[in-house]
């Protein structure tokens, strides 16, 4: 395993970089879109809530592998040429948007209605109330499930190898077939995934401690 890591680290690192770029882009884009979708899901207008709920159902209710293939084959059909890596980021973004929105929706529902009424009575607009009163609390509340979602996306990004993106998983497959050492190769890949996710979990734990402290003292 160490031999594989040592001998093939340039390719492995390149694969890992692609994995990180795809995953982190999707997570960041999904965060912004997820917040907006969560607002849609908690809208007081049925006509806004309903399509948002439909979107969430689709992306949470179908396998991500299927979603990847659908996006990859559908886009050229409707005349959009797109590189595999872009298709991968797009799919993972659309997918994680649904999951993050659901996390935020649940967080928003835990903010007492009275706090929002107090803001509105002070003349703070609905948008400013979301931005300054609701969401800062929601991010604190939802950090643990959000971390789960980030880790899930990182792991699910291994599926994008099916549309020929050379990320960590695909690179490992290539090395395995070239060296005839599949077990060692996949163990090496596992170590890399694990390392990234452990770092993420540590960052999240740190943020959680800091923000909890923020609530109590400063």
């Amino acid at each position: 395993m160490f031999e594989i890591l040592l001998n093939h680290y340039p390719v492995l690192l390149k694969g890992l970089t692609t994995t990180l770029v795809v995953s982190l882009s999707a997570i960041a884009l999904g965060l912004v879109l997820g917040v907006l979708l969560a607002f849609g899901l908690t809208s007081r207008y049925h006509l806004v809530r309903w399509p948002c709920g439909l979107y969430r159902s689709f992306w949470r209710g179908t396998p991500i592998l299927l979603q990847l293939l659908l996006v990859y084959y559908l886009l050229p059909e409707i005349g959009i040429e797109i590189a595999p890596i872009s298709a991968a980021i797009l799919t993972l973004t659309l997918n994680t948007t649904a999951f993050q929105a659901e996390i935020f929706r649940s967080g928003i529902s835990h903010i007492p209605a009275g706090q929002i009424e107090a803001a509105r009575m002070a003349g703070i607009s609905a948008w400013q109330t979301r931005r300054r009163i609701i969401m800062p609390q929601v991010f604190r509340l939802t950090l643990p499930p959000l971390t789960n979602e980030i880790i899930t996306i990182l792991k699910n990004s291994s599926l994008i190898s099916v549309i020929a993106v050379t990320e960590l998983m695909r690179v490992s497959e290539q090395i395995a077939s070239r060296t005839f050492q599949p077990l060692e190769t996949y163990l090496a890949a596992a170590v890399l995934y694990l390392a990234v996710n452990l770092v993420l979990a540590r960052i999240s734990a740190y943020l959680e401690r800091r923000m909890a402290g923020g609530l109590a003292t400063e």
Partner: protein
Amino acid sequence: MPTADTLAPPAPTQQRAIVEAHGISKQFGDLEVLTNIDFSLAPSEVVCVIGPSGSGKSTLLRCLAFLEPYDHGSVYIDGQLLGYEDRSGQRVRTSEKRVDEVRAPVGMVFQHFHLWPHRTALENVTEALRLVNGLSRRQADTEGIAMLEQVGLADRAGHFPESLSGGQKQRVAIARALAMKPRVMFFDEPTSALDPELVGEVLDVMKKLAADGMTMVIVTHEMGFAAKVADRVIFMDQGRVVESGPPATLFRQPKSERLQQFLNTWRERHID
């Protein structure tokens, strides 16, 4: 049985009413919670609303602030219709922005304070000053400290709500509402969630406000406070205004059986 419809509206004063409601009613599903309520509040008037649990006191206050849209009738704040507008003969809801504009003169204090837990006492007070009035941080802080001073809490400016007592939280909530320079303050049972020994400090702040001429509507179970501070007391039952008048008259010579009953129950509970 006297109802809101048969009560004469208050005699017109020189100054226009700050809050005025005509025939408002409100239903939750099949439950009629408010029935044809008329209400008028003159500048500097202090009105206490009393009545049994479930009689619609909170709903009335919330409708007057449009936190709950009323179904029929109309509410005017400073002469402006709140929440609805006429569009070619049809009554339609106004935008949230318009609601904000019309109810800007109204400040509100809730039973459960509803401070924002991620903001310090001072930030709770300055948030709207900065977001709505556009004050700089320094201006807002100066203003906010002055407000906290008014409720005796300047020394708690940097504390987060969770480290304040209930009475302190409610006083911060009052300061938060006062910061926006309201012309009228609505209180919904401001002391009902407090330990008995903390009620006094909040009532003292409210007494001071009344003495300074603040116009107030107070839903309360504190009859002693109502007797002392109110210019007018309104007794509600089952979504209607049953009786209203100066506290001396209302408490000493209740006309309706329901108010007599209500006062007797209250005395029984508070004398021993």
